C-alpha cells in the first residue's frame, strides 16, 4: 500500500515485505517473552523442548506480527511517514506498539494452545483465575489485559530495535534501488 515513488527520497513511502519483517520481529520477541517467563532451570534442562516450544509459539504468533507490520505500514502512509530516519523511527514505534497490543489477545490464544496440547500441565491443573480481591470484575479483566499488554511491551525491548533496524535497512535498499530502477509492481506483499 505504499505510495509509488518514481524516485525514493526521504519523504517517499517506505515499502517493506510484510512476511520478512514479521519473521524478523516475531521470533526474537517471542523468544524474549519465553526467556522472561520460563524458569531458567527448565530452559537449561530441556533445551530442545524449549527451542521447539519457542519455534511453535513464534510461528503461531506470526499472523499477529504480520498484521502489526501491515497496519503499521498503513498508518505510516496515513501519517505521511517516509524514509527519513525520524519517520522510520516513528513507524517502528507504531508497529511495535501494534504488535504489543495484538499480543494481548494472543496471550489468551497462547494459553488455549498450551491447555489443548498439555504443554504446561500445571496451567491446565493448577492455575486458578486470580481472585478478584478488591477489584470489580471489569477492572479485574482490565487488569489482566494490562498485564498482557505489559508483557507485550516488554517484548518490544527487542522488537522495536529490530523493526527500526529492518526499516532503516529497507529504506537504504529502497533508496539504492531507486537509483538504479524505477519502482514498479512487486511480486511480494509490501506496505
Amino acid at each position, binding site marked *: 500500500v505504499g505510495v509509488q515513488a518514481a524516485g525514493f527520497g526521504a519523504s517517499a513511502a517506505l515499502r517493506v515485505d510484510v512476511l520478512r519483517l514479521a519473521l524478523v520481529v516475531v521470533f526474537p520477541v517471542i523468544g524474549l517473552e519465553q526467556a522472561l517467563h520460563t524458569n531458567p532451570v527448565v530452559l537449561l534442562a530441556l533445551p530442545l523442548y524449549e527451542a521447539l516450544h519457542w519455534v511453535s509459539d513464534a510461528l503461531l504468533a506470526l499472523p499477529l506480527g504480520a498484521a502489526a507490520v501491515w497496519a503499521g505500514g498503513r498508518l505510516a502512509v496515513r501519517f505521511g511517514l517516509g524514509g527519513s530516519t525520524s519517520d522510520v523511527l516513528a513507524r517502528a514505534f507504531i508497529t511495535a506498539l501494534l504488535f504489543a497490543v495484538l499480543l494481548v489477545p494472543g496471550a489468551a490464544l497462547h494459553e488455549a494452545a498450551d491447555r489443548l496440547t498439555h504443554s504446561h500441565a*500445571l496451567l491446565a491443573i493448577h492455575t486458578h483465575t486470580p481472585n478478584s480481591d478488591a477489584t470489580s470484575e471489569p477492572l479485574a479483566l482490565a487488569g489482566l489485559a494490562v498485564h498482557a499488554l505489559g508483557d507485550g511491551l516488554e517484548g518490544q525491548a527487542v522488537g522495536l530495535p529490530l523493526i527500526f533496524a529492518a526499516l532503516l535497512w529497507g529504506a537504504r535498499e529502497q533508496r539504492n534501488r531507486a537509483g538504479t530502477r524505477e519502482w514498479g509492481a512487486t511480486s*511480494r506483499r509490501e506496505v
Partner: protein
Amino acid sequence: MKASTRRLFLQLGALAGAGAAIRWQLDPTGGLLFEVNRAFASVQTPQTPLPGSSIPQFMQPLTTFVGRRVSSSSVLVRMFEFQQRILPDSIYNPLPAPFNAGSYAWGYAVSGNDPTTTAAPTRAPQTSFPGITVEAQKGTPTTVQYVNDLPQAPVLRKYLTIDRTIHWADPLKQGHVFTADYTGPIPTVVHLHGGEDQSTSDGAPEAWFTNNGLHGPGYFSLTPTASNAAIYQYPNNQQATTLWFHDHSLGITRINIFGGLAAFYFIRDQFDTGLTTNPLRLPAGAQEIELMLMDRQFDTNGQLLFPDSAANPSLVDGPPSNPKIHPFWIPEFFGDANVVNGRTWPFLNVEPRRYRFRIVNAANARFYRMGLVDASSGAVGPPIWQIGTDGGLLDTPVKLAGLPEPLNPGDPHPTTRLFLAPSERADIIIDFAGQAGKTLTLTNDSQVPFPSGSALAANDPTRSLMQFRVNLPLSSADTTFDPASGQPLRGGANQEPVIVRLVNPSNGTLAPGVTPNVTRQLVLFEFESPTSAGGNTAGTPVEDLVNNTKWNGLRDGGGFPPIPGSTQDQSGQGLWLTELPRVGATEVWEFLNLTVDAHPIHIHLIQFQLLNRQPVALDPKGNPTYTKAWAGAFPGGTFNGETADGTWGPVTYKKGEIIPGYGPPNNYFTPNADGALGGNPAFSPFLSGPPIPPNPNEAGWKDVAKVFPGFVNRYAIRWAPQATAVGGVQPGQNLYSFDPTKGPGYLVHCHILDHEDNEMMRPYIPVP
C-alpha cells in the same frame, strides 16, 4: 484479493500451521516426539515418567488382609523402608537390580506387641503398603507403640523431595532452605483418623519423632519408650466403624503418606463383630475386604515419582509453580496410575454373592466418583449399597446406582455414584448375585482437581480402579444382610441404636432440641501468585488457608503478631489458637469456600453431622460476590507476601485488599451481624438459594466432608461421645473417658495432603 495478498495469507497460514504441528508434537498425550519432553530429570534422581496408560491393567490380584488383621489390644507398628511390587511383574522383571525387586516404599509393619519391650529393629515380615489392618474392640483400649525404623538415609528421600520452605517439622532446625539436599532423618508421627482420643495420642503434627530420637515440641508418649518411638492409647469408645491411621508430620504428611505410611483401623462391637456369625448378618470373613484407593505416578524404573522438579514442564502435574517461594511443592498431586491396596489396577475374584467393602480414599488430592460397569458390554453394573460413613453405620442402606454423571457436576446435589474426597470412607455392600461369569470394573469419573478441572478424557487410565471377576463358584447359600430388603441397620434388636440426630438430614435443619452454643463462620481462601516474576506462575496457589490464618496463627511480618485474642497452646508448640469450643458444647461451623475447588475439611477428635450446604451469590465469572466484601474489610498494611520479583518479602497492601495470612479481617471474637464468631463479614446477605440437605449417604457420622466452592457448608459439631442423647450434655461437661482439654490439641484441616502441608490446617482444643 490481489495475488500477493492471497500468497501472503497462504504463507502465514502454512507457517502458523507448522507452528501448530510442532505444538502438537510437544503434546505428551498426542505427539510423536515423546522423548523430547519425557527426557527430564527430577531434582535429585533422574527419572523418566512411566505413562499410566502404558501400565497393563487388571494383571494382579488384589491384596487383602483377610485372616491377617491384628486384633491385639497391644500393637506394635514399625515403620520401614522396603520394596514392594506395586506395578505388574511385567514392569519389574526386565529391570536391573535393585529395581526389579519392586518400588521402594515406606510402610507400617503391624503386629501384636508388648509395648514394654524395645527389641532391636528388624525388618518385620508383615511390612506392607498399606499396613496390616488393626482391629479394635469397642470399649477395650488399644495401646500402640509406633517406632520410626526408617533408615537414616532412605532411598525414597532421593525421590520424594522435602520442601524446606514450607512450615515443616524441620528436625535439624535449618529454617527456610531452598535446596533439595536434605540429609536429615525423616520425622514421623501417626494419627488415627477419626479416632476419639486424647490429643496426647492424636498424632499432632508437632509431635513427630525421628529414627535417631529427635522430637517435635508436641511429642508425647503414654509411657517412656525408645527415643525413636511413641506409645499412644486409643479408648475405642466410639461406634464401630472404618478408621485409618496415617502419618501426620508437619509439612511432610503428603510425602510420608505418598511413600506408604497408611493402614486401616477397624472398631468392632458386639453387633459388627467381623465374624460370619455377626448379628447384623453383614458379609464377613472372606467377604469383608478393605479397599485403600490412591493414585500414584511411576518412573521407567518402576519407582514412585513425585513431581518436584522445575524441569518437568508437562505431564500430569507439571513443575512446582512458584519456585521463588516453594521450589518443590506442588498445589495438588495427581498420579496417572490408580493403586488399590498397594497394587495398580488389581482384580478380585468373587463369588456371586454379597461382599462388604471398607473403602478409604487415601489419595493426596484426587476425588473418586465411582460406579460399576460391565467390562464386556459397558452396561451399568449392579448398584453400590452404602451402609456406613466415616463414623459408623447409617440407619438404613443407601442405594447408589452408579449411573453416568453429567459433565462437571460441581455442586453438592445428590450423585448416584459413590463419591469420596480424600480421607472419606465408605462402608458398602455389592451384591454380585446374578453376575456370575461377568467382569465388573470399578470406574471413576471425577475431574481433577474437583470441580474446576476438566472432565477425564475417555482414555484416561484413572477412569478405572479395579475389576471384580465373578468367577468363583458359590460356596454356600448367601444369607447375609440384603441391603435391597429395605431393612434398617440400626435401631432393631441386636443392632446399634439409631443415630443420635444433631441435624434433620431430610431438610437440612438442626434437629429438635439442638441449639448451637456458638456459630463460627470461617472462610477457605487460596493465596494465588499475583505475578509470574522469577519463574513463578501467576494464578497458581502459593498456599491455602483456613480462615486466612496460617498454621501457627501468626501474621507473617509486621512483627509477627498472633491473631488478636487468640490463645497460645499449652505444649510449647508456638501455636496460637482461635477455635476454642467448650467441651460438651454444640457448635455450628460454617465454611464459605472462596476457592475454585472443593476441600475435604476434617476435624479431629469428633464425629460431626453435615447440616447443609447453601449457595452464595456469584459474579459473572463465577466467583462469590462475598470475596469483594471480604476484601473490603481488610485494613491494609505491610506484611510478608509475594513481592514484585516473585520472592517472599514485605508487601504493602492497600486498605480493602486481601492480606493473605492476616487472619480474618475483623476481630475473631466479636460476633458479626449473623452472630457468628470468626472475624468475617456475615455470610447471610450473600446467600442465594435454599440450603441443600446432606446427600442420603452423607446423613451419618462424618469426620471429613466435601466443602464445595461457592457454598456455605455447615457442620453440626458436638464435643461429646456419639451416643450422647440430644440435651444429654452441657457446655463444660466432659463425657469423654479422657480429658480433651489437655495436650497439644487437635486439628481442623483440609485433607488434600498438599494443602494441609502448606498452611491449610489450624490447631484447636476444647476448653473446660
